């Protein structure tokens, strides 16, 4: 019975498949992309733009295309700790095909990592990142073709990419952006949007100033009424800003179907203690965490209003991370003992995570001493 097989083995040529689909996968979702920071531009008014090109010498010939609204994640290596930061791409898919990515940072970033970046990143510097990721993008099968976007300050970044992609024909939907600021001088990207809006009917911008009157701008604060005065028919709403702003909009859109209501989630600082369901009594300001990792056990400390991920990072324990908002599951970690608080908006745990004790430390805060098992350190 086996003779037949033996014969067929003998006469078989060794096949090497073409792997066309694997190659497509590698260019759409590369595991690493080597970049050179090719240009830093001070946009005045407090914003700095970083332009990256593929590092051809290191083997990256072209950049992965992405969906407008996605972000890229950088490993940041500081003297005393390693961490990650993600930034929405402000450039478009066409820009990626032409060979560059752009991100923008605000100058007065109060946090240590932001300051480190502004101080240390130099033109010519090399970086290795993964593929762009995130789920904040237009999806024609789900969203209305009318999309209302609302943003303050740097919340506007993902919409810059969307607007440009619409103008360039890579995306096809109607975008009405409500772009709010306290004063005219802080509507930093007005010129960019005016330029796009004057070239395509599909992008409209409504400017809103809180404290100033200016022709062409509405005075006040954005509200559902204001939006509905300006938009006809059904629409999906895309929000990008702080958690406080999301709360405010949630009240405005109380009972609005979640289908039509999407938020850009990249973690900003969350005032965890003031969250609605944060426990009234927490036994201490600071807790001990016993961490089991590849090379043994470490005991570290974490403040009650500090994410566990940041405590791990500050103590030199490496946990992969990306979105830092409970969505990408990269930081997935086992909790063996103790209690944590996780704000509802950032709780991306799966049913089995609850059952078998796993958390996303990027948005978990200690409520007691803890024992964790990290996967990689």
């Amino acid at each position, binding site marked *: *019975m*086996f003779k*037949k*097989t033996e014969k*067929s*083995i*003998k006469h*078989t*040529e*060794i*096949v*090497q*498949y*073409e*792997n*066309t*689909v*694997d190659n*497509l*996968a*590698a*260019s*759409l*979702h590369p595991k690493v992309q080597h970049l050179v920071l090719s240009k830093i531009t001070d946009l005045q008014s407090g914003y700095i733009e970083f332009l990256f090109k593929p590092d051809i010498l290191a083997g990256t010939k072209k950049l992965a*295309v992405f*969906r407008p609204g996605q972000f890229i994640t950088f490993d940041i290596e500081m003297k005393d700790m390693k961490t990650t930061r993600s930034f929405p791409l402000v450039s478009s898919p066409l820009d990626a*095909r032409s060979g560059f990515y752009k991100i923008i940072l605000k100058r007065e970033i109060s946090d240590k990592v932001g300051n480190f970046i502004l101080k240390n990143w130099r033109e010519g510097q090399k970086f290795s990142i993964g593929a762009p990721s995130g*789920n904040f993008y237009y*999806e*024609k*099968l*789900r969203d209305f073709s009318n999309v209302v976007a609302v943003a303050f300050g740097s919340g506007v970044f993902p919409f810059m990419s969307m607007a440009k992609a619409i103008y360039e024909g890579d995306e096809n939907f109607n975008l009405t952006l409500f772009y709010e600021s306290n004063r005219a001088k802080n509507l930093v990207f007005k010129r960019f949007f005016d330029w796009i809006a004057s070239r395509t009917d599909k992008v409209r911008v409504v400017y809103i100033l809180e404290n100033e009157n200016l022709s062409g701008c509405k005075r006040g604060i954005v509200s559902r009424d204001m939006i509905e005065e300006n938009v006809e028919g059904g629409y999906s709403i895309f929000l990008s800003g702080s958690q406080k702003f999301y709360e405010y909009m949630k009240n405005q859109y109380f009972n609005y*179907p*979640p*289908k039509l209501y999407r938020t850009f989630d990249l973690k900003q600082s969350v005032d965890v203690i003031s969250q609605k369901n944060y426990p009234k009594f927490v036994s201490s300001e600071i807790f001990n965490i016993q961490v089991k990792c*590849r090379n043994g056990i470490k005991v570290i400390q974490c403040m009650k209003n500090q994410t566990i991920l940041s405590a791990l990072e500050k103590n030199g324990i490496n946990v*992969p991370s990306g979105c830092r908002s409970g*969505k990408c*599951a*990269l930081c*997935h970690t086992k909790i063996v003992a103790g209690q944590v608080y996780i704000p509802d908006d950032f709780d*991306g*745990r*799966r*049913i*089995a*995570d609850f*059952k*078998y004790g*796993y958390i996303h430390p990027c948005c978990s805060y200690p409520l007691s001493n803890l024992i964790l098992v990290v*996967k*990689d350190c």
Partner: protein
Amino acid sequence: MKDYDIIVIGAGSGGLAAAVTALKKNKRVLIIEKRNVPGGFSTSFVRGRFEFDVSLHELNSFGAYENQGELRRFFENYRIAPDLQWLQIDEAFRLISLDNEIDMEFPSDVWKFRGKLLEMDSDADLALSAFFKLGHECLEAENFIAETNGKPDIKLLRKRYPNYVKFASYSLDKVFKLLHMPKKIKDVLSAYWIYLGVPPEKLRFSHYASLFLNYLKRHPYIPKERSYAISLSFDKKIRELGGKILYNTAVEKIITENGKVKGVLTDKNEKFFADKIISNLTPYTVYRNLLDNPVERDLKKTSIREFASCGFTVFLGLNKSFKDLKIKNYNYIIYDTLDTQKSFADASSLKTNRMMTVSCPNVVSRDYSPEGTTILVFNTFFTADAWKEVKEKDYYKIKSDYAEKMIETFEKKLNISIREFIEEIEIATPVTYSDYLGCPDGNIYGFLYGTYHGIMDDLSFLHESEINGLRFCGGNTVRQFGYGQAYLSGYRAAMLSMLDGMDGKNSHISAEDRLALNEIDANYYKKPRYIEINIGGEKDE
């Protein structure tokens, strides 16, 4: 130098089962997994209010507690996932053809299923009896062969399973012909081929039998907590038994010396040593990417088998209950036409492929997703060439257009609306599957189980390596794809690996010995079976 008794590469379903099996025998085991979670395909993801199972729609050879299949016995024995809610699926499928030839529901119970077929044509009684008997014998024979890792005592095999030896390498279609199966009934019995990726003319009967008939015999099952929970349960068990799992770590090389396994090298530049390795990655991947000096014969063996098909999945979270949406079935199988050869040929292009399966877990468990919502998952497959033409620039548009086409076809045929209720959507293409788990060219269906070579080939030593100490497990490795197979192949690989001789040779153990060793199936083979099948016509060739 030896750090571990066994190193398992990959914590997919096969690798996890292998590790637990070896740990239970007090071996020192290390598992190395590239991703940050266990399970491979056996996982889930969250979008908004919904948690989607990546791949599990029907678990094979599990069965009710009172009617345990091989897989359930393994789970019970090793206390895997004891605390999950297992949902029995009473429906085999609702078969629909777009050309209106059929639209009928079929239950997932052998007797009821047969009853339904007999309603369609009562003259088929004899043919059906023979068909199911033959199928049953195939199931048993394949288990027997698997237990012996493809080196069964042939005499014993012939004696116990004479019909298997005779007919198993026939195609499903050929068996139909031999039995003079009426066309209508043939169409229904063939419906399942969409899950196997091979049309009845090419599908080997034994392969068909071991999947489809197994479902009918014990009903399909799913855990309410998603397949990811099974994976985490394995992880927990492995830790309890003192096993070590390294996540976020990929194996880059298998270190060999004089044709023997020595250890592995990881992407973090660590080396771990063991003289036994069980790979959850396909032989194809291992020989081409992980070994510096693959053996020619091994490379040839992986060249004999063709990859089957690549997958395309649309995950939908709908903001309306399945009742309000008027979705009545768990599992729809939809073909353009019941002409299987045409459907298969159409699968080679995005333009022509119209077949699909649609499954709705809420039908089995109403609160599978939050109240007032429904999860609906569309699946189809393409043969390898279909995605070759896709350009990077058009990729996102193509995937969304194709998903739209599937949804529209379903809406139109069932006269229901879906689209306006889509709250969350995720689309997985062959590119996604290639990216996520590195299955070659997005192929999720293992190998083509054609009839082009001998009975034993993919049951037997095609997956065995010439390298001593190296064994394989998993869905794309041994025989057949799928969860049941992946877990059980892990169990078997571990059992055999432990037997692999000190003399450096992979073990060749007689069927009798193997039976004695097997703790699970000890009683399974007690009485020899002779089943006379009433088949006239052709001779065995």
